[in-house]
């Protein structure tokens, strides 16, 4: 009497999603989302700044924050998914069941992707509705930006799972995931740009397509090294970079999680 791997993966997914629904993380994330939307919609009139009349330009302000939302989603719903089974000793309940470790990883990965995707989807729905109300129109480009954000999400979640399978502490996995995508990759990108090397292989550089599809602006601001060019690869390259990070991160996470022993 054993369930099929697919059925087991779906069970793991269902229970992981239940964890997010019952925990404070999803609520916190939704509050943050509401705050961002509220500020983006409410602040311009409060400061006497007129709204953009073009729906793409209007939503591009939202898209500028979607990268951060994606990273926070991965931090909250992916970075501790695997490491917590070891650190919190719940693996002593889960692992002696007749279920393969790769099935557990796949189930958890699906739950992390779905939960984070729901947050990003709600954000884009709010942005599209705001664009419709303010400018009287929405565009397909908004939809494309949304799809690119989901692709970026997959890449970040893949890396978060890899870190979760490596580290022994949930704090370490969570903090490194956050700083990798908000700081470390950006520093590497800036340094490479100064050396005239295009950082096309960095997911944070590729994530520029999320905003560029709405309002192309290839130039970044000044930095300690002077003004620098924010390189954004073309769409095909960017999507391939996202796919590579997702696939490599997930596969390595599965391999490492399978090898990892549960001993205290």
């Amino acid at each position, binding site marked *: *009497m*054993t*369930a*099929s791997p697919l*059925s*087991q993966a779906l*069970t*793991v997914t269902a*229970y992981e999603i*239940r*964890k997010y629904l*019952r*925990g404070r993380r999803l609520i916190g994330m939704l509050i943050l989302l509401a705050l961002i939307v509220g500020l983006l919609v409410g602040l311009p009139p409060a400061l006497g700044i007129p709204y953009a009349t073009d729906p793409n330009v209007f939503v591009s302000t939202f898209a500028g924050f979607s990268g951060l939302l994606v990273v926070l989603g991965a931090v909250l719903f992916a970075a501790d998914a695997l490491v917590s089974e070891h650190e*919190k*000793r*719940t*693996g*002593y*309940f889960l*692992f*002696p*069941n*007749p*279920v*393969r470790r790769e099935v557990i990883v796949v189930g958890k990965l699906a739950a992390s992707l779905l939960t984070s995707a729901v947050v990003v989807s709600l954000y884009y729905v709010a942005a599209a509705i705001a664009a419709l109300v303010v400018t009287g129109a929405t565009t397909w480009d908004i939809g494309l930006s949304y799809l690119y954000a989901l692709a970026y999400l997959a890449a970040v979640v893949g890396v978060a799972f890899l870190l979760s399978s490596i580290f022994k502490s949930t704090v370490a996995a969570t903090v490194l995931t956050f700083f990798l995508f908000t700081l470390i990759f950006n520093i590497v990108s800036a340094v490479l740009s100064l050396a005239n090397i295009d950082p096309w292989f960095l997911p944070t550089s590729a994530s520029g397509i999320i905003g560029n599809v709405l309002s192309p602006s290839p130039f970044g601001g000044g930095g300690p090294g002077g003004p620098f060019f924010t390189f954004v690869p073309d769409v095909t390259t960017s999507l391939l970079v996202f796919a590579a990070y997702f696939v490599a991160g997930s596969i390595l996470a599965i391999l490492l999680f399978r090898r990892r*022993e*549960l*001993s*205290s």
Partner: protein
Amino acid sequence: MAPGLTASHSDGQPVRLAGLGKDYGSFTALKALDLTVEEGSSLGFLGPNGAGKSTTIKIMTNLIRPSRGHATLFGIDVAREATRALAQVGAVIETPEFYGYLSPLETLAYAGRLRGMAKKDIESRSETVLKEVKLQTWADHRIQEFSKGMKQRLAIAQALLHEPDLLILDEPTSGLDPRGMAEVRDVIKALTGQGRTVFMSSHLLPEVQEICDEVALLDHGKLLIHGSVRDLSRGTGIVTFQATFLRPVTDEELASVGRLPRVQGAKRADDAAVDVRIAGGDEAQAEVLEGMMRLGLRVSSFRPLGSPLEQLYLDRIQESDRL
């Protein structure tokens, strides 16, 4: 074989450990363990802390990999085909943590679904096992509110959920109060009575004597004894008694006690007490007592230090420590 149990290719030995060993760097936690457990029997896996009991159980339940040798359950190598090997196994490893956001009913449903149990079976079995471990009134409460003892009860409930042919229990009464310990022992005894096989680690000898019909003693990663509780309870024929006297004993008197017939050795326990190793049964003990009185020693108490099995256990552990 108990009703509903599956036929296996284990030749009547659901557990077979062959040359099983585990190293952590230069430290050897388990040397080369050879052990089999017969179908329907209950084996108490005894040993002090750090003996290698948990390491063995973790290998058997696929939590860690062996450095050498094989652990086979129902004829299936756990390291090669863990899901098949563990399909008919219920396990409690240490005191597991559960997901705090779930209730016991939801936790059991999770385990049941992973095992492919039908919804109605999960519901009926959950009710039964929660009743068995006296958690039925907590069935819908979040586990985050539970004490260690309650979690241990839940761990036992999830191990029993699918009516496994083999139960692997690592210190199953750990964390329970005396009443809880007695209740869990009764549950395990009932299971052995149904013909299920039990592999149970413990450092509580009386618990093993009460529940198990076989005992294996492990120390420093090495098997020291394996046999039936009945045979080993007869001991080696040498028992240790503690004699307490009305006044302090001199070194000369201690030496005289050591020279009494039937006495294998005498060791000072404190000023007025001596531990005496006696070869033989009741006759020999009476003879030694009379000998002490002839030496002018007035005995206020004369009691055995533990059961023969306990003495055998302590002797072998001490012997193992000396090597």
